[in-house]
């Protein structure tokens, strides 16, 4: 005869830690309905799915939960959370799982991008002066070749600009010609905008790395620069 599993007798250290850290995450309310797993494109990868993961957390399978590389295949897209009748916050669990990996064991591509962002203000590690040079060079070319944009201004760190606009580092680094269309739009509407030189990139790999300290540092540096140096009223996310 099957024996009853007494949850109180299980050692569920990871479950207890994440539940304490995330009291609103409702890990114990899972009804095992499977709505999450049914609508998750990552289901079955590495023999895992969201429903199974929450069961494993509940049963104290700490090592398996903490070690599965599924934590890096799930994109924390929150479709499971959105559809869950009990609002079990699986994406936050995945974030905690990622954080439980020693930093140097987390995927090196994501770690490298996070480290570059902390060091250089963008995930591709381009020096600020190169970013500024590229921006000015591309803007000059547009002004010279298209008379409709001969007065187009593109600035970095212009104090008092109404809007600060971030920029994914992919454009200035790998495809600078893709910078132009957005600037043309901004010129046509006569937007009062500038790029910040500090933490100017739109991407955020420290979030993906689950590096709270790095993520917070990037935000603090950014806020300090916008509020104290530039005084912009609005920050515009370009994606």
């Amino acid at each position, binding site marked *: 005869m099957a024996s009853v599993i007494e949850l109180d007798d299980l050692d569920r250290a990871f479950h207890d830690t994440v539940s304490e850290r995330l009291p609103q995450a409702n890990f114990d309310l899972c009804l095992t309905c499977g709505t999450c797993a049914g609508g998750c494109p*990552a289901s079955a990868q590495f023999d895992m799915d969201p429903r199974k993961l929450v069961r494993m957390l509940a049963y104290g399978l700490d090592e398996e939960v903490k070690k599965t590389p599924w934590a890096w295949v799930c994109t924390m897209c929150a479709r499971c959370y959105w559809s869950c009748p009990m609002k079990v916050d699986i994406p936050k669990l995945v974030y905690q799982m990622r954080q439980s990996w020693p930093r140097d064991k987390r*995927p090196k591509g994501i770690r490298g*991008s996070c480290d570059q962002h902390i060091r250089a203000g963008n995930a591709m590690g381009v020096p600020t002066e190169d970013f500024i040079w590229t921006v000015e060079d591309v803007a000059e070319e547009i002004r010279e070749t298209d008379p409709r944009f001969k007065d187009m201004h593109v600035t970095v760190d212009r104090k008092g600009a109404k809007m600060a606009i971030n920029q*994914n580092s992919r454009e200035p680094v790998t495809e600078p010609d893709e910078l132009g269309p957005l600037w*043309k739009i901004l010129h*046509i509407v006569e937007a009062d905008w500038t790029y910040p030189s500090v933490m100017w990139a739109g991407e955020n*790999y420290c979030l993906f790395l689950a590096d709270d300290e790095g993520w917070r540092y990037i935000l603090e540096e950014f806020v300090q620069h916008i509020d104290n140096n530039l005084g912009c009223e609005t*920050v515009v996310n370009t994606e």
Partner: protein
Amino acid sequence: MRKYNIPHNFEFTTIIQLYAKWIRSGKLPVSSDWNRDLQVKFTIQDPCNIVRKTLRHEMADELRFVCKSIIGEENLVDMVPCGSNNYCCGGGGGALQGGYTEQRRAYGKVKFDQIQETEATYVIAPCHNCHTQIEDIGKHYGGNYHVVHIWTLMCLAMGVLGENERTYLGPDLENLGL
């Protein structure tokens, strides 16, 4: 910033909300006339971060308003499901740099099939991760769609898109308006 309770004096907005505001106020002279006879079909990828995880239908609606103004309402073919219920492309959460390429592409197969169902020639991807992932799965699974940024179409619709700004357009549009 909410997560870490960092105080700040500025407000946050997205370029999509600004595009919508500028189109409504007449500041952006966009038109979909260029596509009235061409009837090029587009679909939209709703990025999880700004749609499901932040402003939900409000953002999904603004995104569609902007896109329809540029391509023509009859030329938008939405994926099923879409909006807040959309499937992630599989490139989010750092997956593009995560090193698990096989799993990332298997994940993306759901998105690929969704796109193929629409029979659209173009996927509008207002997020760089989505853009890269949707291009990659398109090549991997043999799709023949192109993936574009909104700013490309916006400038195309205003007749100001430069010759060197057309990397992501297919042969049907690469010379339009030049």
